[in-house]
């Protein structure tokens, strides 16, 4: 029975996702969103037990939680559940909501699936589900902005899928087996191993927002509805992360590559976030930055990536929800409360001592080389900077529209996530890190956490007085846009003369054919034919006579 649990966890959201297909149920469909991740949460709380092999399904489906699966699954389930509540409260019911519900559930199933997949095909399927179905979360508003963002998102997602497919196939071909463990083992030594790994890096990198493949993140987040952004940033990007963990052999040079790319992302994205006006865009850059840190950890072989990811997921989701909550806040008090929650979360992510984020940072510094520890510490400063900027932008964020009466519910969701982000790391500390429960209370640790945040806060205060340059989200995109315009110009200049050529050709053939009629009239008159007949007669006679 236990064995079926992972399977049930995946099937449940898929089944729920079909609910809106029934027209009568469609108006209330949004309310199933909070229900969909519950079995997964249960599985996580139970410690993610169970493993199952379904030989007939796909190319043989293996399901079992990945290492650290419980953390990922729990975080994912919580983020999705809270976002679900938010969505159910804020989004207007209707056909769009029905579609969203269906694909929300599909995305969720995929998101959970990447943490449960035991074979590459299932993994690929889950990855595709989370990546492609999430498109519906991005474009939900159907505004021009959302659709443009969706286009970028889906393009990159598909490119990522393609890259992933290459990598997985190279691995599977080398392993002659489809299980994740075999593929991972076979990849480094496969004939096309480096190429495959590079492809995987691209595939996962796109999802995980690795520089320079992060383009979609800052574009998609502001466009998506708030709960969508919350799951995108909180949970979905972690699918890329788990891919990196599962498949990239960090022991070889690939780890360093990840570290470098991760660090560049961590700092550059945070700083670039300062050029954004939309709080969600700022948050998106923060996500790129945080994911950079996570990738650095992966590349460095840290064993507490899951712990860090857990906190980041919860906190980032809470912050995104706060954007929605602020917009729905009717009274200054509500607004203040929300901003407080968001501020606490910002501090937590920055690693303010004793916060959940500080614990995550502390744990992940374990076993890292000094430069990396320093980088991590410094990143706290940039994080504070960007999140401080976020708070500034958030404070100026006003509701354009919203369901004000639902504010308490919305607030509860965000506050719930925030509370979890603060508390769960404490709760799990010993179990996960094996360190003493009082370790984070150590003075050195507190100090180490405090000074970068303080410095960051000072910088924020300075920034507040300055006018920051403002760019639209999507940095490198502008470059690509230029290239595309060039290409279109070239295409338009191509000549179109082929058709005329064929017609002329045909006419010429016809003329030749018609000429045959005139040629035939040479044989027509009897004197010609008769003369030829004589010639043929004699030719036959001679040709017979000569050899005999």
């Amino acid at each position, binding site marked *: 029975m236990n064995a079926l649990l992972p399977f049930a966890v995946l099937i449940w959201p898929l089944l729920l996702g079909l609910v809106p297909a029934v027209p009568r149920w469609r108006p209330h469909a949004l309310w199933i969103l909070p229900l969909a991740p519950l079995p997964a949460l249960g599985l996580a709380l139970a410690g993610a037990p169970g493993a199952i092999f379904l030989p007939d399904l796909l190319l043989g489906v293996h399901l079992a939680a990945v290492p650290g699966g419980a953390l990922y699954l729990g975080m994912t389930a919580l983020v999705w559940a809270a976002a679900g509540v938010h969505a159910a409260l804020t989004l207007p019911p209707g056909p769009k909501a029905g579609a969203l519900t269906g694909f929300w559930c599909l995305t969720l199933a995929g998101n959970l699936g990447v943490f449960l997949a035991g074979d590459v095909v299932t993994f690929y399927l889950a990855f595709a589900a989370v990546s492609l179905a999430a498109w519906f979360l991005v474009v939900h508003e159907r505004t021009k902005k959302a659709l443009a963002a969706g286009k970028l998102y889906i393009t990159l997602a598909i490119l990522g899928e393609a890259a992933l497919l290459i990598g997985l196939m190279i691995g599977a071909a080398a392993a002659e087996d489809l299980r994740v463990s075999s593929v991972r083992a076979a990849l480094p030594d496969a004939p096309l191993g480096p190429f495959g790994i590079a492809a995987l890096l691209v595939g996962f990198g796109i999802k995980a927002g690795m520089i320079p493949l992060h383009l979609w993140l800052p574009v998609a987040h502001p466009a998506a509805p708030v709960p969508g952004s919350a799951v995108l940033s909180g949970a979905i990007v972690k699918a890329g992360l788990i891919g990196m963990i599962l498949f990239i052999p960090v022991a070889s040079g690939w780890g360093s590559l990840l570290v470098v790319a991760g660090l560049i992302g961590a700092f550059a994205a945070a700083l670039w976030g300062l050029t954004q006006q939309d709080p969600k865009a700022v948050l998106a850059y923060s996500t790129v930055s945080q994911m950079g840190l996570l990738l650095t950890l992966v590349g460095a072989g840290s064993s507490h990536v899951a712990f860090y990811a857990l906190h980041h997921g919860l906190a980032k989701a809470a912050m995104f929800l706060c954007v929605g909550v602020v917009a729905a806040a009717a009274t200054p008090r509500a607004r203040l409360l929300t901003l407080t929650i968001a501020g606490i979360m910002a501090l937590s992510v920055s690693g303010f001592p004793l916060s959940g984020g500080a614990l995550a940072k502390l744990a992940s510094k374990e076993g890292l080389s000094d430069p990396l520890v320093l980088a991590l510490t410094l990143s706290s400063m940039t994080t504070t900077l960007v999140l401080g900027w976020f708070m500034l932008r958030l404070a100026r964020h006003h509701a354009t529209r919203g369901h004000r009466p639902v504010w308490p519910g919305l607030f509860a969701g965000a506050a719930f996530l925030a509370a979890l982000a603060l508390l769960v790391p404490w709760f799990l500390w010993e179990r996960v890190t094996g360190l003493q429960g009082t370790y984070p209370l150590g003075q050195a640790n507190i100090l180490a956490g405090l000074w970068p945040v303080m410095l960051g806060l000072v910088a924020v205060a300075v920034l507040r007085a300055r006018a920051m340059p403002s760019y639209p989200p999507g940095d490198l995109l502008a470059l690509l846009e230029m290239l595309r315009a060039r290409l279109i110009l070239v295409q338009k200049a191509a000549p179109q003369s082929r058709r005329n050529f064929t017609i002329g050709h045909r006419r010429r053939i016809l003329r030749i054919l018609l000429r045959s009629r005139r040629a035939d009239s040479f044989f027509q*008159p*009897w*004197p010609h034919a*008769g*003369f030829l007949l004589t010639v043929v007669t004699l030719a036959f006679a001679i040709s017979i006579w000569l050899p005999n």
Partner: protein
Amino acid sequence: MSLTVFALTGAALVGLGVYGLLALPHLLRRVIAFNLTGSGLFLFFGAAGARGGAVDPVPQALIITGIVVALSASALAVGLVVALARSSGKVVLPDEDPAP
């Protein structure tokens, strides 16, 4: 020797007939030429059949049959020529008529 004379005459008649068939556009004259060819051929055959001392009756029989067949063909050809002349006013074939 006489036979050779007749045979060569036959050969010459055939040639003459062929000449007439090719050179004469008038259809009635072409029928005449055809008959010349045929009869020249028969003469050749007759001469050949008479070589073995006694006259071989088989060629004679064949020649008689041939003459009758030639007559039949000539009659039909002449009928066609007359009919063509009646309906088109020409005694040459349309594709050999320089002034149609």
